[in-house]
């Protein structure tokens, strides 16, 4: 007990982080996952991507198919509980693990869900509150950037200032704020398909506010919102570029933005 620990220098110890890629990054935008890995490694973490992961189960849960979401949540808990930290590049999926999983269970599984909740972090919160990034190695961004706060990140997790601080420190960018930045963009998971007209109207309000900032890039922390906004912007023929904040922070917006072609 009294023996000094051989590796006492805690700051040098690498944090064992599991990346929850999220289904949308997995399917639609793998570069978000790779950017997140780069950022976490740069912040001194050892990153593992558990192979058994698929999705957090939110589509079924939010649509009221709660009994179908429960076994999905169990599988996520089993896949991610061996790690010190679980980091998620999405406010809505992190919010699902943080707040909604514990409410799905009683007894032993409730305890396990609580334990997972306690070590699950949204990416930008993790990079500002747990593992800090060193000074950037990449060139500052030249484009003006506006930021869309996704609702779950904003209201369930308090993510607002963290991505702005990181964009400032890592990319030298001062975010041009959206008017009405507390208001939902109309994605809402299956809502956007069940009530497409209302959803499109909400997207239009958000896009009009984005255009009014004069920014060329709309960044955000949730791919659901970004895919919905990008899809609506393309339909309207708007020249806005949509990127997940992890892509910008990793200093690697090499490829086209979301919904942009490669001519």
């Amino acid at each position, binding site marked *: 007990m009294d023996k000094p620990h051989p590796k006492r220098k805690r700051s040098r110890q690498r944090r064992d982080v599991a990346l929850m*890629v999220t289904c949308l990054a*997995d*399917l*639609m*935008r*793998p*570069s978000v*996952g*790779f950017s997140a890995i780069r950022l976490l*490694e740069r912040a001194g973490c050892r990153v593992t*991507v558990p*192979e*058994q*992961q*698929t*999705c957090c*189960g939110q*589509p*079924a849960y*939010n*649509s*009221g*198919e709660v009994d*179908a*979401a429960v*076994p*999905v949540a169990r599988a996520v808990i089993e896949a991610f509980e061996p790690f010190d930290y679980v980091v998620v590049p999405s406010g809505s999926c992190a919010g699902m693990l943080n707040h909604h999983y514990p409410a799905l269970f009683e007894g032993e599984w409730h305890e396990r869900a609580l334990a997972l909740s306690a070590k699950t972090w949204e990416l930008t919160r993790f990079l500002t509150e747990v593992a800090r990034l060193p000074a950037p190695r990449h060139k500052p961004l030249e484009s003006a950037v506006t930021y869309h706060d996704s*609702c*779950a990140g904003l*209201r369930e997790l308090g993510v607002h200032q963290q991505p702005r601080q990181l964009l400032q420190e890592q990319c030298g960018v001062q975010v041009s704020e959206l008017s009405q930045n*507390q*208001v939902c963009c*109309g994605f*809402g*998971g*299956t*809502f956007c*398909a*069940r*009530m*497409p*007209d*209302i959803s499109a*109207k*909400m*997207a239009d*309000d958000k896009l009009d506010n984005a255009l009014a900032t004069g920014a060329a890039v709309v960044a955000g922390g949730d791919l659901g919102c970004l*895919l*919905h906004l*990008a*899809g*609506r912007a*393309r*339909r309207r023929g708007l020249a806005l570029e949509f990127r997940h904040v992890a892509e910008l922070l990793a200093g690697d917006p090499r490829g*086209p933005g979301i*919904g*942009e*072609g*490669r*001519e």
Partner: protein
Amino acid sequence: MKLASNEFLQAASAALQEQDKAQRRTIIGQFLPLARDAAASAYGDFDGLRAHMKRVRRHTTAHLSHYLEQFEEAAVQHGNQVHFVANAEQLNSKVLSICQAHSARRVAKGKSMVTEETGLNELLLKAGLDVLETDLGEYIIQQAGETPSHIVGPALHKSLAEIRQLFLDKHKLGDRDLDTVSEVVEEARSVLREKFLAADVGIIGANALIAEHGTSMLVTNEGNGDLCANLPPVLIVCTTFERILPRAEDAMALQRLLVRSATGQPQTCYTSFYTGPRREDDVDGPLETHIILLDNKRSDILASDYSEMLDCIRCGACLNHCPIYIGVGGHAYGWVYPGPMGSVLTPLLNSLEQAHQLPNACTSCGRCAEVCPANIPLPDLLRDLRQDESVQQLKPARWRNGLRLHAWLLRHPALYQSLTGWAMSVLGLLGKRRGTFRRLPFAGSWTGQRDFPAPEGGGTFMRQYAARRRRGGKRG
């Protein structure tokens, strides 16, 4: 009021087409949240007050019959007649029988959402009574033959030009043309003043019932409630039992929460307390007073998982902060109560079958819960209703089956990853040049309004990551 909540989607799409009205709603959706935020922060510990009220409500609900008995006893002692009624029909016929007992012909009403809920006006009009709404907003929509679009501002959907035209059509104005807001208001005031003086019965609602004194509290900005209550010889207070609070100071705490949340005012112009009929030494006041306490399924709600909904104080903050309510307006919800609180209440007070679209009119953005002075977890209650919708098999089968199949696939990672790996590679290739799809099979509900962004290319993350690991190359 006829229930048309299951036509929400069609009504909402039609409402979105009305540019003028949509623009006015947008302004309301910006102004009222600003006013509420300013009032809440000027108060200081507004969240503390919310939490205090929640504790008071929990206590009151746990001892409901005690406080209702205390209220009834005190109210009867002051000379009120107290009636408990089970449903809308009973409330309506009780009011009608009181009117008939006094051979009443003219009824002046203050704003009461409860009587909107029971459809009282329709019944009284059919019985040959002259019923006049005296709240300015209610008066306007009554003249226009419309229903409230907002629980606090019933005529918020109408422009000044529309109201002016309405008065030009309905009032005898001579050569006056009501050019300014104050002329319009003055016109309504002078018409209404006559009606107050001529009314045989006054009907008002209540914002709180104070058990210790048998008193009801009403907040208004126009003072019309006081005129309805004090000028006619008979007063009827129509309300519901969940307005009950133990003490006067609890009603004051509620008033502080209610008004700031509703309009951003520190208090309304009038906060009135009604304790009973005129006493011997009083110079005015009604000669007879009735308090009707409606249940209308509230006992069922109390015993259900939705009991927190009875904490609602009808401030309308959830409406003002809901982007869907602001987008489509109150009428699209198809009944008395719109917005998030209405999307919970309408199915509970009617049936889920008749209103199951409403709980889906929600993105779970959480803004309503953030401002709800009663701390009602509205997004959670709406999600629970969506679960009930699924259990009762009211949801379209293709949605239910699709979601359940998806959830099943998620539990079979190898199959999921191989299917998605293949599908995303194909989609990535097909969409490479344009970057989006204008149309996709099985995705019509997405691509009706938006392009479908093509996957980035190179296959799914899991596939690319596995390939990199196999190559033993540098990750990332």
